[in-house]
């Protein structure tokens, strides 16, 4: 794979114009994601209403892979139920971490990130937002402003 195939227009577009990059005033759930190895940091705000993701946004900076991953994430999960979000998180992480096939039906646009799998050192760039979402939705005590130190352990 040459990297022209990885850095598609979709990824570059999300990198240059990330969707939903803003703070949120009254989120129900918040989590911080941090990859100390590369310095990527993000804060994810979620507004869950009636078991559905009514709104989602983030702040933070990172590389193109990271930014595209979080930007697409916010678009894809808005409106999903918590169960549906959980399923998507698992599919996405499964695509990059396990040796399973990418489920195109479920993942849609997210399959553009599949190529990251071949670049071990970059996998975390793509998965960090998803682990952070998992934490925001299903972690313990995530409504508080919790600096999630342990996150990179799960990424290792």
């Amino acid at each position, binding site marked *: 794979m040459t990297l022209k195939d990885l850095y598609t227009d979709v990824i570059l577009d999300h990198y240059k114009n990330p969707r939903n990059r803003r703070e949120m005033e009254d989120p129900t759930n918040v989590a911080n994601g941090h990859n*100390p*190895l*590369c310095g990527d940091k993000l804060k994810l705000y979620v507004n869950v209403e009636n078991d559905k993701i009514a709104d989602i946004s983030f702040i933070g900076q990172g590389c193109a892979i990271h930014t595209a991953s979080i930007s697409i994430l916010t678009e894809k999960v808005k409106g999903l139920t918590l169960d549906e979000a959980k399923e998507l998180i698992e599919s996405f992480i499964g695509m*990059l*971490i396990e*040796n399973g096939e990418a489920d195109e039906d479920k993942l849609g646009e997210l399959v553009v990130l599949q190529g990251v*799998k071949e*670049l*071990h*050192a*970059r*996998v*975390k760039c793509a998965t960090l937002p998803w682990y952070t979402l998992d934490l925001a939705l299903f972690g313990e005590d995530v409504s508080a402003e919790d600096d999630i*130190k*342990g996150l*990179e*352990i799960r*990424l*290792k």
Partner: protein
Amino acid sequence: MNESKTVVQEPHCNWSKEGPLDVAAIRADFPVLERIVRNGKSLVYLDSAARSLMPIQVIEAMKHFDSNHCANVHRGIHLLSDEATGAYEEARARIASYLGVSDAGEIIFVRNTTEALNLVAYAWGIHNLRSGDEIVLSVMEHHSNLVPWQQIAKMKDLVLKHIPITPSGELDLAEAERLIGQKTKIVSLVHMSNVIGVLNPMDDLSRMARNVGALFVVDGSQSAAHMHIDLSSLDCDFFAFSGYKMLGPTGIGVLWGKRTLLEEMPPFLSGGSMIEEVGLMSSTWAPVPQKFEAGTPNITGAVGLGIAAKYIQRMDRNRTLAHEHNLISYAVERLNELGGIEIYGDLSERASAIAFNIRGIHPHDTASILDSEGVAARAGHHCAQPFHVALGIDSSTRVSFQCYNTRTDIDRLIEAVIIAKEIFGL
């Protein structure tokens, strides 16, 4: 991380993995055994307790790694660095498997046993021990399991107690029971003696430590090389050993610790690689095991050690131990036949080493004469001065064994001892 391909291939071995140990074929893996040493004699290497020889599989794996994957670990985006990281973490996983540990993150790479024990003494000790607390060691310990505790004891005003030995050279368990009490915070003991080869009853000793809520630390320098270690059943908190005693290279060793303890402990050495974030005035720590691996590690050493572990696992530690027991029984029998030989410790079974003296010959003279006959043995206190005091001697001659030794080696030893006696007119 997603490591699909193996970077460092497992060792290829030509000998059979079934039946008794195929020592002749195994010997062919050890290039040093081809050495002609003094006076045109072929080498008989009986100093494995000081350093074991290295099989060509380990030497070649390191050469291959340095020739192909020479890069630093962690953080690197480029292929070579990714491969080096993969190989280093593969080595960690291989050591975990060697020790029966399911969480490879509990394996900390250090330089040697000494550093491992210092790490525990400093990082756990400084922060958890209070004036008057007691540490129980034994008179059988290697200096590396004595001096760091002396240093911490001085720093924190602690009390050191030492389990004595019985006349047969074994730890005195009744005394141990008496010494390990409510004030005991750490019990740190050698698993297998590097002098007389006795295997200590760790289950009993562990139980005594557990009964009083003390940490149980095991110096596995010798045991890791000679017997099957299963840390899921040996109930200890820390286990330390060095690579170069188990067919691996120098400069790499292991501290295994329970994750919960490691996570609570502050770091020991600090600097690059063990941090999460660094500011000018303070920093936060990376998770275990990185927290304890400051600076660039001995990557090639870890790779070599991983292969050494696999090599030993292929031989099967029950097979090698049986082989060594056989050899040692034969050696003890032949030495006793000679007369005038004092063997230390009255043991029914010895692993790895025999310490003895020829009456009327100082062990340095013995070792020199053995050396001139091609037999590499060691003379002195073997870094266990207090143990020699307890045995009532200044020093001893030690012969120690590994998978590659044979009965012929022992016959050569016996011939050399006879020559020593002749020279001294005994």
